[in-house]
């Protein structure tokens, strides 16, 4: 019975996480696009936040990045399912950097936010202040998502302690 209970809890947590990340990413993307129309902002925020779910001890076997990748594919690429795999690969890279190589999580996410800001700046010729704004908002919303996810997902370490 314990196994079934834990599975049910995990599914419930997954659904709550899904809804939380979905809403948070959409609202963040709305704010960014209100200030300046930035391409791929929603997929980027979905990718950042879904990756965060894999960095806690109670992992979800990369299901979140895959699901949000599918959503991003449907919304952005209109039917070519590439981002679903891309999100999973990205999540694994971050997972590897944070968990295996033990690099500070904040630095890793700040670096990827910076990469996205530079990409937006160079590829779409957005003004510099927009890139900086995207970088700052991306990082802040990830911090918020990280905090919320840590509240939902129970870390085994803290539980054992």
């Amino acid at each position, binding site marked *: 019975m314990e196994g079934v209970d834990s599975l049910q809890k995990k599914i419930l947590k997954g659904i709550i996480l899904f809804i939380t990340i979905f809403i948070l990413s959409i609202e963040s993307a709305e704010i960014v696009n209100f200030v300046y129309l930035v391409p791929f902002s929603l997929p980027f925020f979905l990718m950042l936040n879904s990756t965060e779910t894999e960095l806690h001890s109670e992992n979800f076997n990369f299901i979140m990045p895959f699901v949000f990748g599918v959503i991003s594919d449907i919304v952005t690429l209109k039917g070519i399912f590439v981002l679903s795999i891309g999100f999973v690969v990205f999540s*694994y890279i971050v997972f590897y950097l944070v968990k295996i190589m033990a690099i500070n999580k904040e630095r890793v996410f700040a670096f990827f936010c910076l990469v996205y800001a530079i990409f937006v700046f160079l590829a779409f010729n957005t003004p510099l202040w927009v890139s900086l704004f995207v970088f700052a908002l991306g990082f802040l919303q990830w911090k918020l998502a990280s905090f919320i996810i840590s509240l939902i997902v129970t870390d085994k370490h803290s539980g054992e302690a």
Partner: protein
Amino acid sequence: MRIFIIYIIAAILLNVSVFVVGGLFYKVRDVIKESIVITSLPVSKGLNEIQRLIDEYLILISVQKENEQLKKELTKCLAGCKNRENKTKVQQAQFSFKGNFDSTTIYLRTAKELNLKKNYCFVLEDNMHLVGIVKEKIKNHIYMAYTVFNPSFVADVKIVGDDNQTFRALYMGNEYSPKVEFLDPNVNVKKEDKVYTSGEMGIFPPNLFIGTVKKVKDVNGYYKVAFVDIKRSFFNKWKVLIVCRKRS
């Protein structure tokens, strides 16, 4: 690694399914897009409200700036009008006078030399009330003039009543009882109606204020006479604007 393979297979299946059941895919896409729009609605509305407030504030700032600019322009224009001597029809002057208002004319002495000509009107500087008209130049600083208090002063005027009705007649100067004569007996002139120059005879500029009606008298049913109350404050401050009335 096994998980990755499962995800890759799932992605391939999804790609294939789009080609096989495209209609379903478009329905799913519409549902997702709709859910994104609904989710973003509260923030979107809030942001639009903020934008509206910012826009209103910016408009307010721009209107204030515009008003300040207009105010400056107006001040500049008025100063320019006063400073440009002999170039415009308005110039500033200061008079001292000799004689009394019982006589036909009065003598004016200007504070500085001005090239005034016959029939130049002079009005009070602060409220543009008509004071008189230059009749003749005696010497460089001395002029002979009629004022609204001299009996020889005659002007074509209009009395503006209620509903902006105007009644035309002749104004005749007097020190104690200046009056508007020959008003039609049927006109409804009342106390406190205002008397202005009509400008129709071409001597005085139109719409210069003279005074207010203080009493109306019917002369045997032939015509009416309106006695005019004129502020006498300018006796102490002969600081006037000279207005050229010439039309030709």
